[in-house]
């Protein structure tokens, strides 16, 4: 018997989109809940800085403006490596 491929595809799509949304909606709620719990029971100790721009994001903005920072980072990375060799 011939399979109606398009019909099957539609079913896959339905199952797939429902599950993707369910998964990510659930994730959104869990993350909200988690943020609440963490901020209630384990509030950041120090006056927390703004979101530290991570390396990957730094690269998103073309990093021309900050050569000095890069140099310091380079040296720090190295220092870390050396300090951690033991």
């Amino acid at each position, binding site marked *: 018997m011939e399979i109606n491929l398009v019909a099957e595809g539609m079913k896959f799509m339905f199952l797939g989109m429902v599950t*993707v949304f369910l998964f990510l909606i659930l*994730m959104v709620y869990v993350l909200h809940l988690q943020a609440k719990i963490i901020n209630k029971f384990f509030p950041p100790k120090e006056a927390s800085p703004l979101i530290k721009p991570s390396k990957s994001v730094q690269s998103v903005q073309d990093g021309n403006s900050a050569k000095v920072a890069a140099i310091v980072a380079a040296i720090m990375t190295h220092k870390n490596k050396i300090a951690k060799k033991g």
Partner: protein
Amino acid sequence: MKKIIFLILSICAFSMLQASTAIDTNQPSVEKTQQSHEVRSIGEMFSNFYKTTGIYAFLNPKEGATNALGEPMSKFAQSWGRLIMIAICFLLFYLAIAKKFEPLLLLPIAFGGLLSNIPLANIIGHEGFIGVLYDAGISSELFPLLIFMGVGAMTDFGPLLANPRTALLGAAAQFGIFGSLIGAVALSQYTDLFNFTLQEASAISIIGGADGPTSIFVASRLAPDLMGAIAVAAYSYMALVPVIQPPIMKALTTKEERKIKMRQLREVSKLEKLMFPLTVLMLSIFILPESTPLIGALTFGNFLKVSGVVDRLSDTMQNALINIVTIFLGLAVGSKLAAEKFLVADTLGIIAIGLVAFGLGTAAGVIMAKIMNKFSKEKINPLIGSAGVSAVPMAARVSNKEGMKEDPTNMLLMHAMGPNVAGVIGSAVAAGILLSIFK
């Protein structure tokens, strides 16, 4: 000094001679025979040599010949096919170098493709070096997962944690996957040119996830023969994001919508970042174990990074390890650019479907943002919806750029990173679903 060396060398020489005598007398000696070697005249040798040249192979395709893996090759594939593929690899070089199309993967893939179309060299055979890499890392799914670890170790999920509901944009953009799945099966059913199985159609549709390693991972399970075309299409379209997305984004949004400013993202604590990979992994375990190799690798890399106690491992993952694996993965995937695999009508279909997939995903993300704005007071700029397709971080940059075109003070970059990284998770989930269907 020289005398000492000479003395030592003499002793060695003497011992070896003695050794060889000892062996002659004591050891079950294996008589070495001249291995089969047919004596030929100089003329015959040159004519035989000519038959081992690439020129001869291109000019004289043989009926019933096979490739290094023992698969049949048409006469066309042996001659013009290989030459066309070499030209296509050169085109990919051009795009990677001059046009900066994802060179990190396209260069190794295209070079692997070049090497895979060399007649007689057997580089993609199980004994050849690319074949060895393929067997070691693609059949076993190891390489795409190691890449994913490195991606995890490089990714900052902070923007998503600061505004989790943007994850829904990453969910909507997966419509690119499932919409193109319909497209692929429709092509199969209603044309005679294409004849994709459901498995193949599913593997192709993952291109819409805009995520190279995920595409390769799924293709290695559901449609290994199409992997070359799928990988090339996935990475090419990821590179083409700045060309494909803007017209769609503009068509679906009004000037006012594109000017929406979003509230600055809240601070995210280190503990939230630490729990995030574990949370996502636990959800995958409970809901979709089939996606856990991908999500597990991604969250493993991210967890090592955010733990802050194993910087040397995280650093190696982001550099030496991912670079080595990228080289190996590229060459191995390139072996699927062999003419007999790539120069088939299917490839055209894959390229066409891939384009549709990116468009659909982009549109779905934008529309989802507009829908969310209907139900929520805090407005989302729909331009960040397009970032839901993944293609980290190009898609987010495109959102930012389009936003700044309307209002140069409107920095959408960090806002767009939320759906962008959610898109990576969304694609892995979609991949898991398709894999679970065919389990």
